[in-house]
């Protein structure tokens, strides 16, 4: 984002004046030819609620583009990367998607990690006939709210429940209580897990939904029933810190086993929690520590991200990597490259061919796919990925064992079939 002072002032002035300047920024649309750069847009959450994650998704996508451009491009063509800020806000995010497609002429768009932004964008992606790869965790994008133009390269609540709940129920205990932030994301986790747990005969206590603005967790922690063996928590940022510290001071973590997905620890170091989350089990999608998946590919991508191998802290800043999410945009750029090359895509009107190429595409673990081998399921466009079961030990997130995709895929069958839709 380098803008000279003078040009910046001009922009500020152009922005300050109203309607008559709307058209100043527009370029003249030119017909794309097959030697022009391929434009990949990124609807990135650079400011607002989820920007601590958005930062990494942008950095990683940018690194992938630079790497590909330095190594011959896509089918001999250069990639032009354009990021616009979603402001972590659905109406702005949807507008930025339009801007990327119509103003910056993006051929493909990588989406925000904010699910609300993703859900606002899915219908527009279909109408503008643009391939869209959202990064939010809500199941709906590759379910009831998705369509043929929407693909997922990361994970979602549906597959997360399938990946972790069964093992956790067998190893940690059969009686579960859920405590979570009282909005869509928390309820989605509760509902998906409840289905899996009840199907294997585990008991699920009534949920404890905590209002979003509650900082004092004690009244809610006091409601955790005595018979609870596993306490599943799902909070964000400062509420996550409040949950772990207060659960620790009340000794709830002594009488129950804590289990959750990585999200409550994402972009946060266990050390920042002062050891309060010690002993908690976490479902990761790519280990925070390099040593647990120490491949040449992960070494390379972490080197590009400039993070240390243990805590994932960025060189020269206090940022902690969103380790289970950042790789999804890196891989999204490579999935686009592979599908373009496989389908012979030349201009945007060939996008249906890219969609068909992606449906059912399998890739091996490689620099392009450092998280591991995976398949994009044709029906619901969801990447079927490996998970890891980890535990907080001595202030570090240590992996216990890998959960291969083939062992869990039967627990989350597709709920939709986009291949029946026309493109």
């Amino acid at each position, binding site marked *: 984002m380098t803008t000279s002072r003078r040009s910046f002032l001009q922009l500020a002035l152009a922005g300050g004046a109203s309607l008559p300047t709307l058209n100043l920024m527009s370029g003249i649309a030119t017909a794309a030819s097959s030697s022009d750069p391929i434009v990949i847009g990124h609807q990135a959450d650079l400011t607002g609620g989820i920007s601590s994650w958005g930062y990494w998704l942008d950095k990683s996508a940018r690194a992938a583009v630079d790497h590909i451009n330095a190594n011959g491009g896509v089918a001999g063509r250069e990639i032009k990367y354009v990021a616009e800020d979603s402001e972590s806000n659905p109406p702005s995010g949807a507008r930025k998607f339009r801007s990327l497609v119509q103003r910056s002429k993006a051929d493909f768009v990588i989406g925000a990690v904010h699910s609300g932004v993703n859900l606002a964008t899915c*219908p527009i992606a279909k109408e503008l006939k643009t391939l869209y790869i959202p990064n939010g965790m809500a199941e709906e994008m590759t379910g009831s709210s998705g369509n043929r133009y929407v693909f997922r390269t990361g994970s979602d609540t549906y597959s997360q429940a399938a990946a972790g709940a069964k093992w956790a129920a067998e190893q940690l205990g059969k009686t579960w209580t859920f405590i979570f932030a009282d909005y869509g994301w928390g309820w989605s986790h509760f509902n998906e897990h409840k289905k899996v747990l009840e199907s294997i005969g585990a008991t699920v206590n009534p949920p404890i939904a905590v209002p979003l603005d509650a900082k004092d967790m004690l009244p809610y922690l006091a409601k955790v029933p005595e018979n609870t063996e596993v306490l599943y928590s799902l909070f964000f940022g400062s509420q996550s810190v409040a949950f772990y510290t207060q659960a620790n001071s009340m000794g709830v973590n002594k009488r129950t086993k804590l289990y959750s997905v990585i999200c409550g620890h994402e972009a946060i170091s266990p050390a920042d929690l002062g050891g309060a989350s010690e002993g908690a089990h976490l479902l990761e999608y790519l280990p925070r520590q390099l040593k647990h998946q120490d491949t040449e590919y992960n070494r390379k991508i972490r080197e590009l991200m400039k993070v240390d191998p243990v805590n994932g802290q960025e060189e020269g800043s206090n940022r902690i990597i969103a380790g289970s999410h950042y790789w999804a945009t890196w891989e999204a750029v490579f999935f686009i490259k592979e599908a373009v090359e496989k389908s012979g895509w030349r201009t945007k009107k060939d996008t249906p061919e890219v969609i068909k190429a992606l449906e059912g595409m399998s890739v091996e673990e490689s620099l392009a796919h450092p998280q591991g081998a995976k398949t994009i399921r044709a029906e619901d466009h969801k990447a079927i990925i490996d998970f890891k079961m980890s535990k907080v030990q001595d202030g570090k997130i240590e992996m216990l064992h890998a959960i291969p995709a083939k062992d869990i895929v039967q627990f989350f069958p597709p709920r939709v079939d986009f291949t029946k839709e026309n493109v």
Partner: protein
Amino acid sequence: MTGGSFSSTRWAVGGLLGLFAAVIGYGVWLEDFQRSFLAEILVWGVFALSVSLVFGVGGMLSFAQALYFGAGCWGYNVAVFAYGLSGWAPVVAGVGAALAFAIPTGFIATRVRQHHTLIVTIILSVLVSTILASGHWRWIAGPYVTRSLPEAPTLPLGALTIDYADEMSAFLATATLVLGACLLAMLLIRSPFGLALKAVRENETKAAMLGYDVRLLRWLMFVAAAGFAGFAGVLYLMLSRYSNLEFFDWTYSGRAVVMAALGGLGTLIGPFVGTAVYLTAAEHLSRYYEHFMILVGILLLVLVRFMPDGLWGGAIRILSIRFSR
């Protein structure tokens, strides 16, 4: 409209039609992204207009407008998803839901005065959005609000059918519907009801002594303004095919208050000018500078300091002084 020498209704309607003709012409000439952006400005402008009515004309600083914007989305989607309706029926349902919801909530909000209105409306907003987001009550709004429309909406118009899937049609339909809302707002402001309300705003005791039912007038205005907010919700949903529980949040009301104040409270065109400036500034700046909100904030402070009656209100004032010389 507050505008001294421009106040004859015929002039005002003519001016409004001329202005909209210019805006529509401009939109048709624009490129696709800018055209849909302009449509979005018009829609959020109607939302800001509801603030201009309830606060600028009615003297009630309401932070509950987002509730009615959300209720508009809810009503529309209930009609679509629960009853399988299409065309104009969901539009009517959306506005109807906002009006119906404003009757009891407006009754509570209009019992108090000045800053108490602000406090009560914020409490109402937080209360309602907490209830709607909570798992126990999620069945009320969850299945309807947090859903995208599967298909672009269509509006039958005599022999014609306006299809929102076509961006030009969507723009023209939105602009025309916004024009309709503006004409209605103008009638409301200039009607005996609007004038009586002005009297209430200026001096409640005097108005009461003249025989006006102050409570009823304020309540009616609150409900009417909520109808405009609900209509904005419907227009936004049709344009974007999307709504979310977030739309009920009082911070969205705050944004509308800023947009209306920026353009000129109590005026008809001001809210649209304010919305255009706010969104255009945010849109351009955010493409080049991540912390653009700081600049938008400074811009707002400068404008509020030097043009307290807003950009449009200020322009009208300056013009009036000129012409009356």
